[in-house]
């Protein structure tokens, strides 16, 4: 994997802390003489420092990372060059607090982008954003995940358009899984950027289109993939129990459930994700056991071999989001409303929010599904 960092202050020695050997690494500024040569090289990821220590000036010019991204995009359009994934790389994650994210209320971010990278990245026309501070090991893994996602996309999709089959390869869908066909169907519904049989030059953005679809449209939202809270809600258990079910799986059912954990490209950029089709398969086995007369808890114990199983206490449990539209736990559907947020991909399940949160601001009120509107002002049960 090859990573190029554009940064006004970082030395190569410092950069090695983020991109360890044996990966290829280059560090430069946009004023360096070899900038054009660097541009000609094949990279898997370009990390752009946002604060380049320059003033905007009176006439248009590059003075920060996002203006450099604009220049890179324009140059790529003019030259026909395909850029790799481009990510903002900054020590100041609140620099974009005035930007309005692409998903959710049309209001400024109002703070750090951390946790909301997928909602902000499309606005800045980058694949991702990374904050330099925090857990160094996690950051190194995230940089590697970004670069490797591009590397995998380039290897799987080639340069003659992307077929649906190539997407299966790109994502690492296990061909021997019992739920393989269901996963294929769920990916068809996930609207992957197929460019099969593209003639002449490849699509402008090339393999990066697949990475962007994965990072910004697919993994952040419940659909073909699910987060822990969604999986736990479907199985009717607590998130802690879900962890126990797959921690050291003794029984076939648990082993099958563990195989549903997504380990493909960009997995390290998100909390744990699961193949939704696999979770449906596991859930079905549970339902069949319940229909045979067992209660859900004993059925789960028998299927998993796990003794300590805590069920969700809520009727019709659903995964809920907070006011930043990020996963925040599980609640009974009766205490929630369903939202239709601006920018939420239509192929994804619409999120649920606690009634109190949804009623707390006019911008949420107007996102609430019409059939749930009446609940916003209803007295609490």
């Amino acid at each position, binding site marked *: 994997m090859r990573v190029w960092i554009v940064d006004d202050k970082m030395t190569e020695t410092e950069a090695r802390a983020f991109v360890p050997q044996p990966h290829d690494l280059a560090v430069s500024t946009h004023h360096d003489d070899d900038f054009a040569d660097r541009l000609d090289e094949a990279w898997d990821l370009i990390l752009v420092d946002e604060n380049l220590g320059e003033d905007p000036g009176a006439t248009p010019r590059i003075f920060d990372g996002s203006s450099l991204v604009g220049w890179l995009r324009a140059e790529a359009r003019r030259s026909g060059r395909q850029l790799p994934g481009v990510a903002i790389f900054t020590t100041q994650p609140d620099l974009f607090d005035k930007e309005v994210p692409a998903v959710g209320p049309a209001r400024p971010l109002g703070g750090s982008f951390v946790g909301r990278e997928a909602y902000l990245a499309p606005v800045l026309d980058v694949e991702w954003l990374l904050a330099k501070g925090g857990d160094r090991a996690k950051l190194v893994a995230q940089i590697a995940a970004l670069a490797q996602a591009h590397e995998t996309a380039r290897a799987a999709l080639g340069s003659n358009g992307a077929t649906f089959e190539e997407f299966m390869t790109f994502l690492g869908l296990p061909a021997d899984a019992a739920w393989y066909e269901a996963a294929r169907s769920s990916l068809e519904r996930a609207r992957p950027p197929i460019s099969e049989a593209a003639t002449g030059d490849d699509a402008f953005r090339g393999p990066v289109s697949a990475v962007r679809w994965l990072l910004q449209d697919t993994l952040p939202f419940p659909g073909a993939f699910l987060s822990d809270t969604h999986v736990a809600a479907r199985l009717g258990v607590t998130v802690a129990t879900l962890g126990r079910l797959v921690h050291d799986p003794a029984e076939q059912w648990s082993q099958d459930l563990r195989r549903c954990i997504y380990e493909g490209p960009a997995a390290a950029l998100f909390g744990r994700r699961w193949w939704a089709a696999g979770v449906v398969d596991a859930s*079905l086995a549970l*339902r*069949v056991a319940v*229909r045979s007369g067992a209660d859900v808890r004993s059925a789960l114990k028998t299927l998993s071999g796990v003794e300590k199983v805590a069920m969700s206490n809520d009727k*019709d449990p659903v995964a809920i989001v907070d006011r930043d539209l990020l996963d925040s736990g599980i609640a009974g559907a009766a205490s929630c409303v369903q939202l239709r947020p601006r920018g939420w991909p239509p192929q994804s399940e619409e999120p649920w929010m606690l009634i109190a949160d949804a009623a707390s601001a006019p911008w949420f009120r107007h996102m609430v599904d019409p059939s749930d509107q009446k609940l916003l002002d209803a007295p609490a049960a």
Partner: protein
Amino acid sequence: MTVLFKPRIVAEELRRLAESSRHLLNRNHHLRLGNAAEQLEGWFQSSRPGDFEWALDEPIQTEPSTSYQGSDNAAEVTASFTFLWRCERTGNTEVAMAVGGGTNVVVTRTTGTRVNNYHFDLCAGGAVEGSPVMHSFSHAQYSAGTSFPRFPSIILLPTDVLEMLLFELWPSDWPEAIDAARNSLMRHHLGQRKRLVRVTRAFQNLATRPFPVVSLQSRPPAPIPLF
């Protein structure tokens, strides 16, 4: 008697029907329909062997209605809806068959009094366990003091029974909901038309035999494709 159907299409129809009718169903009960759709599709697309009892995990309830007599002054009722279909695989990777099943509707006054209970059954048709009793392969029946009458029914699939129930409870609101979701429900209604025609034809063929009323209770000679 068996009927053939395409689980992925039926599941998608059910999802869309659930979404379009959620305002007429008890809060969040549309989720149960969505889960049932997911389970049908999940079973069918899984490579695991075995048959499947397609059912709702829990019955769904409707919102109360007072408009089922054409005006808003009828006694307020709600309905509970559930179904179970026994499904098997066929050699065709798109088609499953149902070998039996039932869809049950219970209508209750909001006072708690049960006022109606009826079901739609899919069965083999013909003689029952060697006795002279015969059942029509698709029939509707009230749960009353006797096991008859059983009315031959062209409505068979649980999704279609649900839509009939919605229309009966909300003769104005449901058509409005259909109108609002016209695009989304288009394939459901196209599929529904085919199903009704196919089952009607099966009855029509039986009715051309000697003793038509009795023949309606016979087993059709071939599985009925509902797609």
